[in-house]
């Protein structure tokens, strides 16, 4: 009997040895004269257990992890005999960390072969598109509205309004653009879904095309993600071959096709208008809005531009799940958010859950605290432009409005954990330095302000007129926040000001030291 193994081909798993595990498995099986079959899947997102190897059994897929090449022989023996093993995690679907999630968008990720349209279809794939093709534009837009979906890139703009605007704008050519320029440190959900379930992104973009009358799509992937680029290219070819891209998609009257475009290492191109400039072959300089991309986007044509996770949420919604999706969440944040736990964290990975879970639950219960075992001092939520939150704010629920009310943002859902060795003045300096490196240069507050910010923080850290320079820094942040053209200059003040507000002692303002005396 052939034993079937599942090993991730996700870059995060490969980075910790998944490819070596495959070679070792093949070798061990040959030595033992055991017949095995290895299927490469995406990652389930339990990264501290990667490389996580799964074995098909009558009871379901049994997981082992984290597996090293030295463990492979004994894992194979345990798999052959269905016996015990120190790394045996039980039935994968029953692992509490996975079971506690609300996996709507990531339901298939880590389960299916991301290169197979058939496997995708066997797991509810393309059912959303099939239904969308019978609904037509108005029906699709109604479902998206019902779901309450808001753009998952960070801004949280209602997706239905954006799509309706494009649908109502006349144009001889319209475009669907997927923003896969996931540059925020601490985020990897886009990468994971592109590598683990690329067809869901393609299906979401195709549905968008049908909804607004666009026939051409681009997915702009950052060059730092070569595995995702390959996965998307492979999937696009497979979707074309299966009749899901091209003319008469799924045998309908609609046409839609798409291509991958690769960025070139500019963080600012994650900003939508800068991304459009880059797609057009120009410097990634931010455009002033209006005109909105929905009216004049790519090549001046009406364009839907959404994040990977927004498109990936669509197939579930269109497969009769609009109300079910809206039933998750809190307040105006409906549905689920794939939250990414990263940095100095014990149980790092992707945790998709309904909005409303608190930051403390995420960091302490689910994340298990720091990997270093030291106390958590600060977490940065929402990437390099997100605020640093201290423990005192851990009761904040994961919700767009709740975070905004605490001068923070959830952004793309990344949480980076720092222990008590972190120097928050240094983190504030890095935020300004990063902005200076990545500024497109179009507006003055961002271009000049970031460099002046680095200089000012250096003076504060050197003890040079501390109080006066803190006032200068606050004033500078105010100017950047309200005077910048886009979120790069406009949001860099979030990490800086939050570090200053919550951790003043690191800037030489020493209230904590005084309190300790």
């Amino acid at each position, binding site marked *: 009997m052939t034993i079937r193994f599942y090993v991730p081909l996700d*870059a995060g798993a490969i*980075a910790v040895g998944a490819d070596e595990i495959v070679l070792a498995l093949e070798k061990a099986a040959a030595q033992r004269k055991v017949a095995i079959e290895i299927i490469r899947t995406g990652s389930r997102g339990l990264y501290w257990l990667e490389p996580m190897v799964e074995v098909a059994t009558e009871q379901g897929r049994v997981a082992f992890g984290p597996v090293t090449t030295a463990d492979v022989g004994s894992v194979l023996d345990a798999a052959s005999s269905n016996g015990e093993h120190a790394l045996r995690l039980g039935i994968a679907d029953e692992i509490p960390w996975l079971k506690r999630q609300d996996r709507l968008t990531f339901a298939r990720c880590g389960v299916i072969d991301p290169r197979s349209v058939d496997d995708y279809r066997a797991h509810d794939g393309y059912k959303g598109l099939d239904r969308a093709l019978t609904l037509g534009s108005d029906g699709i837009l109604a479902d998206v509205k019902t779901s309450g979906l808001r753009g998952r890139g960070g801004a949280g703009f209602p997706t239905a309004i954006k799509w309706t605007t494009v649908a109502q704008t006349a144009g001889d050519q319209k475009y669907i653009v997927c923003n896969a320029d996931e540059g925020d440190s*601490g985020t990897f959900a886009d990468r994971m879904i592109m590598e683990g379930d690329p067809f869901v992104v393609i299906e979401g973009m195709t549905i968008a095309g049908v909804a607004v009358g666009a026939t051409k799509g681009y997915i702009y992937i950052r*060059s730092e993600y070569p595995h995702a680029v390959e996965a998307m290219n492979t999937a696009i070819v497979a979707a074309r071959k299966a009749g899901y891209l091209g003319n008469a998609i799924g045998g309908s009257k609609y046409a839609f096709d798409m291509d991958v475009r690769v960025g070139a290492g500019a963080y600012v191109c994650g900003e939508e208008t800068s991304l459009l400039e880059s797609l057009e072959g120009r410097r990634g300089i931010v455009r002033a809005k209006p005109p909105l991309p929905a009216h004049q986007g790519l090549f001046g044509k009406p364009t839907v531009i959404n994040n990977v996770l927004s498109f990936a949420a669509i197939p579930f919604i269109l497969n009769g799940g609009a109300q079910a999706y809206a039933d998750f969440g809190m307040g105006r944040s409906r549905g689920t958010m794939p939250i990414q736990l990263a*940095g100095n964290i014990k149980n790092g990975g992707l945790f998709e859950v309904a909005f409303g879970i608190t930051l403390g639950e995420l960091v302490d219960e689910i994340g298990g605290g720091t990997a270093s075992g030291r106390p958590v001092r600060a977490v940065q939520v929402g990437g390099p432009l997100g605020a640093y939150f201290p423990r005192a704010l851990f009761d904040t629920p994961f919700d767009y409005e709740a975070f905004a009310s605490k001068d923070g943002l959830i952004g793309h859902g990344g949480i980076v954990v720092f222990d008590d060795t*972190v120097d928050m003045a240094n983190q504030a300096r890095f935020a300004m330095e990063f902005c200076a490196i990545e500024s497109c240069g179009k507006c003055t507050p961002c271009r000049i302000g970031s460099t002046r910010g680095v200089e000012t923080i250096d003076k504060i850290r050197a003890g040079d007129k501390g109080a006066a320079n803190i006032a200068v820094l606050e004033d500078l942040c105010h100017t950047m926040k309200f005077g910048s053209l886009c979120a790069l200059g406009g949001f860099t003040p979030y990490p800086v000001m939050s570090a200053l507000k919550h951790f003043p002692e690191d800037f030489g303002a020493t209230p904590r030291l005084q309190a300790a005396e």
Partner: protein
Amino acid sequence: MTSVYEVWDADRAAEIIATHKHHEGPTLIILHAIQAAFGYVPEPVIPMVADALNLSRAEVHGVFTFYHDFRHEPAGRHVLKLCRAEACQAAGGDALAAHAEKKLGVTIGNTTADGRVTLEPIYCLGLCATAPSAMLDGRVVGRLDTNRLDALVSEAQR
């Protein structure tokens, strides 16, 4: 080991440009393809791209210089990129970067004197749950510690 890249050849560059110029907004695609072939973007390419796309030299030069990926000169034989972003900082990335600089005798952003290794910063590989991370010639490595980094550096120096 000999270089994996082709030596500069204007005819070959013209061929690459012709292959890709039909795309919508092809400038980045062409520059990527040129760099994939030659290992960098040789200066004579800029006016060739400008001519082919009916753009000014300044426009193409502007695109070339805007993006961090495009190289003005060939890199070392191996390129070691260390993630310098927040998630890797939280996991001890700063100390590892300093260790790599000391080990290789160059600061980040530079190539060793023997031309073997270019050490570069990268801002996020999306491997933030297995931080700190690095990329050696396109191969990703996570959970870096001093031992794993030493092994990577030795591999790059070979």
